[in-house]
């Protein structure tokens, strides 16, 4: 183990993905596919010719043991048995019945000629009771018309076509698929004598309605936010992008618990190699359970140890929509109100949707404010420490006298003061998030006013430092991206420490390392500092933005299939010459 740290080992070569122009990307992809088909051919899934043996159940200490208990997914190769009791045994074993009490197995008879025995399986709490009663049980028990059915093998198909009127009904024979449907709110109906099972969509769980964004509020713009239901979220995007080329692909990740992950992109806009890379990364995740998009983000990001995020996480559908319309790919996870968008750049992390909704001067004003806030958030404490400790000559004499007199009673060096107050501020912020809502607001006021005031009066910190800390804290809230805000909050402590030891020289060293690390970072093959490092063609939308009618092309680094957003003259009305006013007439002429 020790040798690992003593002997140099070059980093293992990774499959470094570089987002190329889509034509090159296509060629790459073809190459990749041909390699894949040559070396690792997918094994076609065939129906098991031999009927699986019924699971034997043996009595042990008077209790039924579960033979599949220690085998996760043991049922994946099981097929539906024509014997109803065997299927019931399978279901009981798979769901550990009767121990597992929210699995409902309902026996009933289908009123055909002759009557067919059947049972339905669904999960209480995630299946809608009304749907199960009205769309599954009622038609099967009462409305099947007592028609004669001769072939049991075609029974399920007959019921699907003529009896059950659910909007999504499937005929299935693999237990793996059936269990997946049941676990996601569906109802399965097993029929006596039939090797097929009916699965009816009957999802219906308690869910939060679409509400307002919590962390990305705007004054001007839509006030909708994503919720925890995947289909609601895809719907929010689809209702805005009314385009048949908007593709929603759904994958399942997690071995022990499968979670639905959807990717959404515009087929005729997104770079195919980017879409393939997103697919590849998601499908390569091999873990028991991915519960949150934040965890998925950590599985698929390029540089996990760097402070700056490489994926945009947003709760605003309008933001995701604008990214998809630029050729990016959105990743949605079931149970999560935060949608990931890739690739991202540093500058996207500094943008807010409101920048575009507001008129040009206002939009640019808030962008400038935000850039200033970003710098204030991570260098102000460091500058204060450097100036008061090493570079006093920078401050005009009057001001230095004020600072010196305010620090006269403070027994600690500046850096200790700064660390003390910054740490206290972070604690207030963290406590404000954790404590119950009613106390939260009070805690903020107590922390900000009383603690600061008391600390000054006690002579522990100087009043100017309170201004510095308050300014830094305020600035960190102005950073629109939550992860980015975290990055700068953490980095400022390192900068402060460097300033305490080396003054501006230390700050410069910190900036240099931060910049060098960022220039080497990539987000799904796109350098994070694009379009300035490396320099690529981009519209007028980096730090400041140009008029919306001047953003003719999409940024070059996305390498979208179609680079142009709009023609050179997008304001059609300026093409035609204004009508000559009639002599003697005019709008302002009073009659």
């Amino acid at each position: 183990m020790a040798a690992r740290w003593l002997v140099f080992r070059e980093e293992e070569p990774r499959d470094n993905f570089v987002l190329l122009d889509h034509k090159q990307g296509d060629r790459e992809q073809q190459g990749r596919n041909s390699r894949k088909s040559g070396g690792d051919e997918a094994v076609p899934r065939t129906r098991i010719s031999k009927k699986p043996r019924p699971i034997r159940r043996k009595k042990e200490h008077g209790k039924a043991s579960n033979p599949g208990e220690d085998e996760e997914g043991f049922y994946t190769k099981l097929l539906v048995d024509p014997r109803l009791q065997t299927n019931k045994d399978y279901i009981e074993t798979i769901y550990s019945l009767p121990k597992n009490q929210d699995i409902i197995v309902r026996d009933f008879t289908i009123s055909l000629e002759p009557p067919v025995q059947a049972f339905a399986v669904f999960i209480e709490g995630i299946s809608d009771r009304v749907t199960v009663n009205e769309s599954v049980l009622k038609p099967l028990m009462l409305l099947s018309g007592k028609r004669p059915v001769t072939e049991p093998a075609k029974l399920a198909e007959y019921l699907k076509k003529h009896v059950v009127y659910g909007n999504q009904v499937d005929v299935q024979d693999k237990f793996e698929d059936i269990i997946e449907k049941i676990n996601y709110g569906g109802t399965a109906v097993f029929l006596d004598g039939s090797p097929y099972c009916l699965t009816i969509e009957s999802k219906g769980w308690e869910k939060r309605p679409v509400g307002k964004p919590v962390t990305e509020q705007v004054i001007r713009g839509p006030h909708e936010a994503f919720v925890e239901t995947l289909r609601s979220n895809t719907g929010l995007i689809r209702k805005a992008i009314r385009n048949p080329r908007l593709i929603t692909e759904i994958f399942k990740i997690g071995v022990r618990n499968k979670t639905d992950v959807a990717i959404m992109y515009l087929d005729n806009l997104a770079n195919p190699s980017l879409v393939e890379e997103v697919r590849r990364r998601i499908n390569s995740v091999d873990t028991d359970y991915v519960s949150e998009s934040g965890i998925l983000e950590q599985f698929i990001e390029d540089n996990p140890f760097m402070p700056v995020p490489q994926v945009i996480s947003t709760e605003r559908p309008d933001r995701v929509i604008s990214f998809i319309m630029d050729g990016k790919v959105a990743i949605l996870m079931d149970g999560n109100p935060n949608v990931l968008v890739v690739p991202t750049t540093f500058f996207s992390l500094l943008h807010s949707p409101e920048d575009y909704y507001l008129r040009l001067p206002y939009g640019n004003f808030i962008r400038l404010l935000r850039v200033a806030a970003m710098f204030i958030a991570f260098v102000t404490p460091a500058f204060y420490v450097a100036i008061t400790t090493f570079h006093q000559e920078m401050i005009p004499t009057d001001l230095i006298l004020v600072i010196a007199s305010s620090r006269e009673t403070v027994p600690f060096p500046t850096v200790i003061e700064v660390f003390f107050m910054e740490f206290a501020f972070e604690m207030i912020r963290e406590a404000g998030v954790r404590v119950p809502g009613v106390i939260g607001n009070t805690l903020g006021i107590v922390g900000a006013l009383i603690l600061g005031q008391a600390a000054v009066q006690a002579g522990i910190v100087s009043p100017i430092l309170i201004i510095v800390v308050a300014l830094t804290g305020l600035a960190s809230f102005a950073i629109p991206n939550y992860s980015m805000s975290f990055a700068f909050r953490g980095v400022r402590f390192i900068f402060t420490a460097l300033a305490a030891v080396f003054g501006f020289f230390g700050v410069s060293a910190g900036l240099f390392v931060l910049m060098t690390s960022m220039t080497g970072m990539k987000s799904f093959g796109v350098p994070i500092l694009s379009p300035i490092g490396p320099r690529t063609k981009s519209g007028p939308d980096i730090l400041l933005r140009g008029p919306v009618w001047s953003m003719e092309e999409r940024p070059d680094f996305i390498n979208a299939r179609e680079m142009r957003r709009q023609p050179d003259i997008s304001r059609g009305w300026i093409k035609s010459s204004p009508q000559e006013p009639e002599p003697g007439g005019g709008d302002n002429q009073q009659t």
Partner: protein
Amino acid sequence: MGTISKRESLTFLGPSEALAMVMIYMGAKAFLGYPRLMAYQGLNAGWLLTVLGGLTAAAFWLAVSALLARFPGKSIVEINEIILGRPLGLGLNALILVYLVFSSGVFLRQFSESVIITALPDSPLSSLAGLFLLTVLIAAYFGLESISRNSHIALPFILIGVAAVLVSLYTFWDAKELLPILGAGAGPVLVHGLLGSSAYGEVLLLAILAPFFSFGANTIRKVGLIGIGVVMLYFAAITAVYLMVIPIPGATETLAPFYQLSRTIYVGRYYQRLESVFVLFWTYTAFLQLAIGLIVTALAAQATLKLPYYRPLLPALAVLFLSLALTPASLMENTIIEEYQLLYGGLFLFLVPFGVWALAALKEKAEKQ
């Protein structure tokens, strides 16, 4: 370039990044004793020396780039071996390598001393040199791509920062200080001007990194010429303002001319004594210059010694830089070494490749005959 590591083989730099790197590698010495040396050698015509040096360097660069054009995609290290044969080529490459290490060692010492003079008078030299090296080592570990992009992003800010200092001194400009126009006389100006081409010798960086560029020899030549041209103007502007603000003989005695300039700024009560702010600019430039020096030396060593990777060389080279930086007994001793380097460094950086180019041309002629 010999054998290069898998990761670096994927690195291709664009012309703007190459230009930024070469400009910073050449231009960083303006923050050290360079303007003083120009004032010392050329007196009131110090700025003229920078122009003459730049023009001479451009002529040499044309020869070096002609050599590169004969062997597209190959670095000067490889070309030396092809033309001179393995033993001689190895010897010559070793010479270039020694110069690169020596040059970075001198710069490291000068930069560390400048930090002591300008910002941290009580700090021990070794701690400052140590921070310089640690930072630069981390940057070099991130790779050539990161450093080149960092240079490209930082360059406009550095240029604006320098321009701001020069313009802020407008009230102190005294154009009479640039007269007589030929300063110490035509002879000394011409001799020192030619020798002054050494200040642009770092343009050889382009020849060492040729395999990492996404463009051909023609663009390499242009990048080199533009780099020399812009840096020449920048050197001339700094030296001229220096001479106009701090008259001879004071100008020949200042240890940190640029610091002295930024310290002189007084535009109003709230716009004065800004030397500490400019510490940020020039130390950032120093970090970049040393990082470029370290990675270029490591890549040259990798190619010379035919090693599979360059990263294991980085700590070893960093230790060498530090040892060399701490070797001179005093600041004055190092300043004298720096002056020698600025005068005769060109012998290594220009004359040697120029000789190889001449040899290649002769060989080709003989082969044709």
